[in-house]
């Protein structure tokens, strides 16, 4: 069997064994859920409900008029308790709707459209994806209906369903592939029909043989293939993955559609299936709760808006003193300042690290070992960029391709001088953007 791969990358300890054999388990629902109205890239939603109003599960609670946005729905039936600004996983405060659940399970789903691909119409399904508030669930949270409706002139010939899950520790996508195989394949076919593509490739890393087997047995149909990649981080990064599979390079500053491809996460495919077939908006998702700071690591079906603190209790609580709380995986995840943040649509994992496991290191001058140059999957010179950024030479950073950095973290992972390369690059990107904005004025 052909193994797809790429040049560069790293092999961090994967630690998937902590949670990979734990079947998805529905997490208990807390008394109060706090649902942020910004869970996507694009225009923030305005609340469509008022304090004191009773809502049903699946009812619209926030929307925006813009094109690039995704509506937000109530994950439970209950009463709106508060509309307030709360801490978002990205680190700033956003408007949120706090809902006190009543346990009655009153639903207000959308009209089910059935599961007969042949009779389903692409336009109707696209509208459904939009109404259901589906976003990219791999973590980027880009509104799915925008991605599935490329502008005129952009021809899409391939849909890639990304099940690589190359981030260490995370196993949510793996469990979805194992336990919701039929649904996610149906969802993939629906996306395929929306896009009008003939070819759908579902791609998995080699270290998930059971998922590969299950997918192959389930799909067995023309136009649908399972591809297997080498186990290497960041195999699942969109640009890296497209090049590995198809040999096409997404142009600098461009999108996958520029090379006729759309990439969707397996979780997104599952959400599409449920929205179309059952009329269910995106109000819950599978989240891996793992790390050496968790008593019983596992995978949970979690209502959007569930506070992390509550979810951690579902996994048996913490062990030892927690030094870091990360939303996402250890390579690209976001460190959180509080246990009160809510699970959002893009939350693939909650990683708790014990204090002893948290690296707080001084960094040293670059010794030009070139480990980062070897590891960079987009062929930058990260060490050079870090030195340029330290010298605050933002323009030069631009010339050295700082905006092409995908922030995968490989350079920083391998750096023997422990230099915060990604951090310096992120700073350079922000500074450069400000300079560009000023030039525009």
């Amino acid at each position, binding site marked *: 069997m052909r193994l797809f791969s790429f040049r560069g990358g*790293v092999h*961090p300890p994967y630690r998937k064994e902590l949670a990979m054999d734990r079947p998805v388990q529905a997490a208990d629902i807390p008394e109060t859920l706090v649902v942020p109205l910004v869970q996507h890239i694009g225009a923030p939603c305005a609340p469509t409900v008022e304090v004191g109003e009773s809502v049903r599960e699946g009812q619209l609670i926030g929307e925006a008029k813009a094109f690039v946005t995704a509506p937000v729905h109530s994950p439970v039936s209950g009463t709106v308790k508060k509309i307030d600004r709360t801490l978002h996983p990205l680190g700033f405060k956003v408007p949120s709707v706090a809902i006190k659940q009543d346990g009655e399970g009153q639903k207000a789903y959308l009209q089910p459209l059935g599961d007969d691909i042949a009779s389903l119409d692409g336009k109707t399904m696209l509208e459904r994806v939009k109404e259901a508030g589906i976003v990219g669930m791999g973590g980027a949270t880009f509104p799915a209906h925008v991605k599935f409706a490329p502008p005129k002139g952009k021809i899409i010939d391939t849909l890639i369903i990304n099940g690589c899950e190359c981030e*260490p520790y995370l196993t949510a996508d793996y469990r979805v592939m194992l336990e919701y195989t039929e649904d996610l394949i149906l969802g993939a076919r629906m996306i395929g029909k929306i896009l009008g593509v003939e070819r759908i490739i579902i791609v998995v890393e080699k270290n998930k043989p059971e998922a590969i087997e299950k997918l192959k047995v389930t799909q067995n149909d023309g136009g649908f293939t399972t591809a297997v990649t080498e186990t290497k981080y960041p195999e699942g990064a969109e*640009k890296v993955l497209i*090049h590995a599979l198809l040999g096409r*390079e997404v*142009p*600098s500053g461009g999108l996958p559609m520029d090379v006729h491809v759309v990439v969707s996460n397996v979780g997104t495919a599952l959400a599409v299936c449920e929205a179309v077939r059952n009329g269910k908006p995106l109000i819950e998702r599978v989240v891996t709760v793992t790390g050496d700071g968790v008593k019983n690591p596992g995978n949970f079906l979690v209502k959007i808006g569930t506070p992390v*603190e509550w979810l951690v209790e579902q996994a048996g609580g*913490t062990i030892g*003193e*927690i*030094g*870091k*709380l*990360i939303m*996402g995986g*250890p*390579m*690209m995840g*976001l*460190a959180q*300042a*509080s*246990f*009160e943040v809510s699970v959002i649509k893009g939350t693939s994992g909650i990683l708790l*690290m014990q*204090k002893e496991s*948290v*690296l*707080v290191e001084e960094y*040293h*001058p*670059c*010794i*030009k*070992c*070139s*480990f980062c*140059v*070897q590891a960079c999957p*987009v*062929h*930058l*010179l990260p060490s*050079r960029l870090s030195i340029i950024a330290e010298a605050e030479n933002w323009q030069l950073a631009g010339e050295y*391709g700082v905006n*092409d950095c995908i*922030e995968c*973290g490989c350079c*920083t*992972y*391998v*750096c*023997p*001088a*422990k230099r*915060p390369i*990604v*951090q310096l690059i992120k700073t350079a990107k922000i500074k450069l953007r400000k300079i560009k904005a000023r030039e525009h004025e």
Partner: protein
Amino acid sequence: MDANALVLSTSPHIKSTESVPKIMISVIITLVPAIAFSVYQYGPHVLYMYLVSIATCIASEYVVVRLRKRPVSVADYSSIVTALLLVMVLPPKFPLFGVVLGAVVAIVIGKQIFGGIGYNIFNPALIGRAFLAATYPVFISSYNAPKMLVDAVTEATPLAMMKFDGVLTPLSGLFFGTVSGSIGESSVLLLIVGSIYLFIRKYIKWRIPASIIVTVVVLGEIFHLINPAKYPGPVFHVLAGGLMIGALYMATDMVTSPITRKGCVIFGIGIGTLVMVIRLFGGLPEGVMYSILLMNAFVPLINRGTRPRIFGTGAANE
């Protein structure tokens, strides 16, 4: 769950176990076989040279760093690597005072003047040796025969014999280290054995030694074919003198070599070519040191000229 204890930092949140001290200690350990062999070959004076060099390098590093009011960097072991490599490229009878002088120059002028580890342009150990070779009167006459050279007729190095007397040394002697030469350069076998670990750990940018050796072999073969009586074969050139220690341990010094893949190849070809030009046509019997130092100076330029094509840019998208 105490939120006050939560550390906030940018991703990635895990890092490899590689570190600068770990790399330096690995280099030191892989040098031990060759160092031990050199002490056996040349006796206790060489051991004293190593010890004096280490003490001087650490002391000068400490003093300069304190004067510059920078955090003490002695703990990264890089000055010990410099100390060992400096002695390995000196003649065995070299006076201890000369070693002190070379070590001070290596650390102060070779490294700290540029800003310390990471910032120096030239290989510090070679700066130390170049200084001594140019200034120290007894340098050339300080070679003596090693213990295992049974037939101790001559104390001249194989390259000097080739150059000035037209005498060729048997290749096995070069390989196993039973010939005259600088302290650490004589046993090619032990240098190779030691460096294997560095190759495996990727602490050596393999393209550099590979391209140096290939260049020397190709050029050596060409001239050997032209005039076998005058020019020795390629294997001689690879095994003789400081080529192997230069290719494996000096040219591959991380700080002073290119960071790009292509750059490493150009750097290696440059060194190999210069070595052969000096050996075959220059006034000196050996040219590894000057070749490496000269190419060190070109590293920034090489890096700039060999920037890899960034993913999604250039030819592939036109």
